[in-house]
């Protein structure tokens, strides 16, 4: 679970708490430092413009310590086995990348993660983190209901199927929930690609499955459609490395994260 040091995400912690009740977890709180421009990733096709952040003041250090203390207190209270990682130096993303390599899932509070960075939402730092990590990511809003409905955002791509598989391995406690396999493609092509194949796979994992073809332009309306679903989690493929075009392609996903209403599970290798 990654925090940016300044901001504690109650929503993300609540999610872990629920998971831990079903199946005990080891929770590593990764308290990343504030960063400056020089320490951002230098993707040639980067997704953001330069970002400047104030240097740490004493008051800020106190805030970080308070957040760590809160994390410890909550873990003890809810009987969650935990570790704390801090004092990373300046390189936030490389550290997060390595931590994620040795983790099953990374949970990030979508509203609170470096919320002071970047003017757009989700902020550039969150987008960079989603590109960099090496395990599945769950982006959690601050106010939501723990999922009782799975929405599988299948677009025919291998990455969307990979996400569905990873979700099934990592969150088995949610597999008996009602599940919608939605064909969320950008174009108006009116058939579900490889429908027999995807059904053959998905019915093995999800016991209460409905296949639904969305009869609207999902690029424009998928986020709105999701918003109407109560207590849902959206399962989607990763952004991939060809950054900018992928970000556009997955704009519906960014919309959902931006809406701060529904947790999103993003499969990631």
């Amino acid at each position, binding site marked *: 679970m990654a925090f940016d040091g300044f901001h504690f995400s109650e929503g993300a912690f609540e999610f872990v708490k629920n998971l831990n009740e079903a199946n005990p977890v080891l929770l590593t709180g990764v308290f990343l430092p504030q960063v400056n421009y020089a320490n951002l990733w230098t993707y040639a096709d980067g997704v953001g413009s330069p970002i400047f952040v104030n240097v740490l003041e004493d008051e800020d250090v106190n805030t970080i310590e308070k957040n760590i203390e809160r994390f410890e207190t909550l873990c003890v209270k809810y009987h969650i086995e935990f570790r704390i990682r801090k004092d990373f130096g300046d390189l936030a993303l490389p550290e997060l990348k390595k*931590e994620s*390599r040795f983790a099953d899932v990374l949970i990030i509070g979508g509203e609170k993660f470096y919320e002071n960075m970047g003017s757009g939402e989700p902020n550039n730092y969150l987008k960079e983190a989603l590109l960099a990590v090496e395990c599945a990511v769950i982006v959690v809003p601050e106010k939501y209901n723990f999922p009782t409905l799975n929405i599988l955002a299948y677009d025919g791509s291998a990455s969307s199927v990979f996400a569905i598989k990873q979700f099934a391995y990592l969150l088995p406690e949610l597999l008996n929930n009602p599940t919608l396999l939605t064909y969320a493609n950008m174009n108006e092509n009116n058939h579900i690609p490889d429908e027999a194949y995807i059904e053959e796979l998905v019915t*093995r994992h999800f016991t209460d499955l409905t296949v639904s073809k969305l009869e609207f332009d999902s690029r424009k309306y998928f986020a709105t459609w999701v918003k109407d679903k109560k207590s849902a989690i959206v399962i989607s493929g990763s952004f991939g490395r060809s950054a900018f075009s992928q970000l556009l392609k997955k704009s519906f996903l960014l919309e959902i994260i931006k809406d701060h209403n529904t947790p999103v599970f993003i499969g990631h290798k």
Partner: protein
Amino acid sequence: MQKIIAAFDGFKFSQSNLNYAIALAAKANAHLTNVFLDDKTYTRYAIYDLVFEDGVSQKKMSKLVQQDARIRNEAASKVVEVCSQIGVSFNIHHDENVALDELLHETIFADLLIINNKESFTHHEEKYPSRFLQDLLSNTQTPVFLTPDSYKPIEKIVLLFDGTPTSVYAIKQLNYLLPIFNYLPVELITVNTDDEQQTIPDVNLLKEFLHRHYPVINYTILNGMASVEIVNYLKMETLQCLMVLGAYRRTMVSRWFKSSMADALVKAFNFPLFIAHNK
């Protein structure tokens, strides 16, 4: 329940592959999809068998095509019979287009692929790994369980760790897909090229992760050239091991899975390999 696919060449049916597939599916309570790659361009007869002085004999061709179909159907019937007897959940796919493309497409929609390590989908001899296998391992969308020529139940897990993200990825995938093996003895082997160094890359993070999944695990550090040292070390092994290694993207071949390493393991041992790559 997971979906395991087992790939077969109906002309050169691998009994060992079927045995491993059924054993894993039964143990993991998984659904087994048996994929017969009935590639139309891959036949037992040669084109010149059909050509006579007066042209191509349609009668002869029809006879040869029927012969091929019969052999492939017999292999599939054998699978149906054994799966029914054992009582695993199963179905059969007959994929008739180019074998490699069909199988890669199947891997997108499967949790695990099981295939014999000699599979080549050609009639001429090929040195291991065959071109088919190389292309498959480079582009598969699911981890691959490579089976040897004879079946023996797995008694131990050996994780080959070289510090790369892909070797960690392979370990994670094994744990997700075959947690049935978590109770077996587990050994992690790493090799330092430096003769004296006794370190494991990212040891603290690695141990913290592994101990969540494998309560008892032995760590072995070897020194020297990986393909030589690992083979020498495993020659002393008495248990049937499942070797777990990251691999194999043509553009970013893992240090471990150069063909020499895979070749050495396959030639020296009758061990199955579990291979996964993360890019």
